[in-house]
């Protein structure tokens, strides 16, 4: 029996036609030169689950663009930034990347969600548009090719120094509480941290898996307390951070906690005093005693300009643009094309540039940045530089000031 098509068929045809037209639309190519204005498409998670951080990343990038333009631009050019909301959605993020690749933007930036960055990077490489990713910490984002860079260090590279710091405070044993449904947490809990602990002679008393959606942590907390560890690694996310810390304190654990940068940017605020003595690595915190001068300078300038304190996300967004700015400096008055920009980024990646998260920030062969990092101690209300830091957290980092 034939069914009436109704409105579905014309609608589908319209969508198809729209897609084809969009696909045929002329856009920029990798040898097309920018004029007096270098355009950046900044794809940001302004709404949805990533919004809390995404807004700061975009704000940091916009601040850096204003800063550069106010200083007269670079090589006679000004920057223009077009912030596009990905809604924290992978399909929307890839769609925005496709649109940006077809536009006259010279470079695309994105900050946050690993699954989105992983899907966007191959598009950038295929379309030959420089793509500067901020924080996405999953491996493989930059593996797709030489158009893709990441301006943050792999966080696990900081863990050695973090555990050494705790050991210097007298920690001889640790338990590990981790979200078993998060691949990065699984790797850290079952491979990276135990390996570092073994190397340092720190005993792992217990490794307990929980689920991110769990709400009641009294049972794992009691089990951890039975092992009497000197420190507890908390590799959970979202509301689990607060509820698991509260459960540990209620169960009688009063020692230090440590974990990933997921504990930063306000994640510990709901836990309040229960989270005092929680340590985690970060690329930046708004502290006047940050161990590198360029970070302190950024903090002061940003506060003076906006009246707000920058978060590590704001600093990260700033440094994505700072990386681009250094590449444009390298090009000077030469032609700015996507290809020339890619080559200039490679030069800067090797030589280094000054950013809020380090001085210098250089990149490894994997096109992932090396930044010094700071060990943070939560004091119940604010993030502070942990006492006893000797040099950068990143092993092997050599900076002018770190």
């Amino acid at each position, binding site marked *: 029996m034939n069914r009436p098509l109704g409105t579905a068929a014309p609608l589908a045809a319209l969508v198809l036609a729209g897609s084809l037209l969009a696909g045929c639309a002329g856009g920029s190519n990798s040898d097309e030169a920018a004029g007096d204005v270098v355009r950046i498409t900044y794809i940001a998670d302004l709404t949805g689950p990533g919004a809390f951080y995404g807004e700061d990343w975009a704000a940091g990038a916009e601040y850096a663009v204003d800063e550069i333009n106010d200083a007269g631009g670079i090589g006679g050019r000004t920057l223009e930034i077009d912030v596009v909301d990905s809604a924290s959605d992978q399909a929307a993020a890839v769609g925005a990347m496709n649109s940006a690749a077809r536009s006259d933007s010279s470079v695309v930036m994105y900050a946050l969600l690993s699954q989105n960055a992983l899907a966007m990077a191959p598009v950038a490489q295929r379309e030959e548009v420089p793509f500067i990713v901020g924080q996405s910490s999953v491996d493989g984002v930059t593996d797709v090719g030489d158009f893709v860079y990441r301006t943050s260090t792999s966080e696990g590279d900081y863990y050695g120094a973090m555990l050494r710091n705790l050991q210097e405070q007298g920690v001889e044993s640790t338990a590990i509480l981790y979200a078993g449904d998060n691949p990065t947490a699984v790797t850290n809990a079952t491979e990276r941290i135990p390996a570092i602990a073994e190397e340092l002679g720190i005993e792992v008393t217990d490794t307990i898996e929980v689920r991110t959606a769990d709400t009641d942590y009294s049972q794992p907390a009691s089990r951890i307390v039975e092992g009497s560890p000197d420190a507890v690694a908390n590799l959970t996310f979202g*509301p689990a951070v607060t509820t698991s810390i*509260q459960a540990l304190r209620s169960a009688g654990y009063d020692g230090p906690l440590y974990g990933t940068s997921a504990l930063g940017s306000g994640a510990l605020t709901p836990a*309040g005093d229960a989270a005092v003595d929680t340590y985690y690595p970060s690329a930046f915190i708004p502290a006047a005693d940050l161990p590198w001068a360029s970070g302190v300078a950024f903090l002061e300038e940003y506060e003076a300009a906006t009246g707000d304190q920058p978060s590590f996300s704001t600093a990260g967004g700033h440094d994505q643009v700072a990386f681009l700015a250094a590449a444009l400096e390298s090009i000077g008055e030469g032609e700015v094309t996507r290809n020339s920009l890619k080559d200039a980024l490679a030069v800067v990646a090797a030589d280094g540039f000054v950013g809020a998260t380090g001085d210098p920030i250089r990149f490894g062969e994997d096109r992932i940045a090396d930044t010094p990092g700071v060990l943070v101690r939560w004091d119940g209300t604010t993030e502070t530089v942990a006492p006893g830091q000797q040099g950068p957290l990143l092993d092997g980092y050599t900076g002018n000031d770190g």
Partner: protein
Amino acid sequence: MLQQLVNAGALGSIYTLFALGLTLSWGIVNILNLAHGAIFTAGTVVAYLLTRDLDGLPLPVVVLAAAAVCALISMLIEALVFEQIRKRSRNELDTEMRTLIASVAAAAMLVTVAAVVSHHQPYALPGSLMERVTWEVGPVRITNVQVVVLVSALVLAAALTLFVQRSKYGRALRAIAFDRTAAGLSGVSARSLQLAAMGLSGALAGTAGVLLAVYLGAADAHMGDAYLLKAFAIIILAGVGSLGGTVAFAYVLAVVETLVGYWAGADLRDAVAFGLIIVVLLVRPQGFTARGGWQRA
């Protein structure tokens, strides 16, 4: 082991608090309201906003405010959505399916509002709402929050059971669940009673939300989802409509989860808990304590 049983007691109380409202709407008045978890979340949001903007509010005031707002939300959903669906549906099956989908939509809307209000971040109620006190009894640690949650769950469960079984309104509620038309003919206003029942169910969800947020130390917009699944499990194990069974199996599930989690880890814990449900569905699909419609509660 004793400590784990104390932990299980607190967890079972939370399950009880959450499941009571759902039992009332689903088990007693036959409205399968999947927005119950979202209304529970709304209770935490109301408490968060109140305590953020007004210092020094006592816990009972916050609980009452959250319960009132959640009762209102629940009644609005009943009046503006479920009642309209009943009027427009051709038969019982039609009503149930449409109500189910509408409740999913209502839940999504409420959760979205909660997520936007909280900026997709966890939020905590101030510690001053209930300062934590810990007592050490031999090898066991018990907090005042655990005691409050336990007592609240048992008192509310007893009160609800008495209300449904002994009061005139409770009997009328069971009458409309058994045969809405016949109850209507005998002078029972099904519409008003269902509205009141949904309001009470919402109030219970709001109360559970606030107490849970105090107990856990934080909440987030999606927290209700996990409890909704557990509440379904408990109600199926108990048998739909059995208030006493719901309370009993809330604690049974909590003990099983706690002990399995302790000995075998988080993965096996959920597998065992939900495996139990499959076994019950196969062996005793009516649950362990279910009775006929007119005998419910």
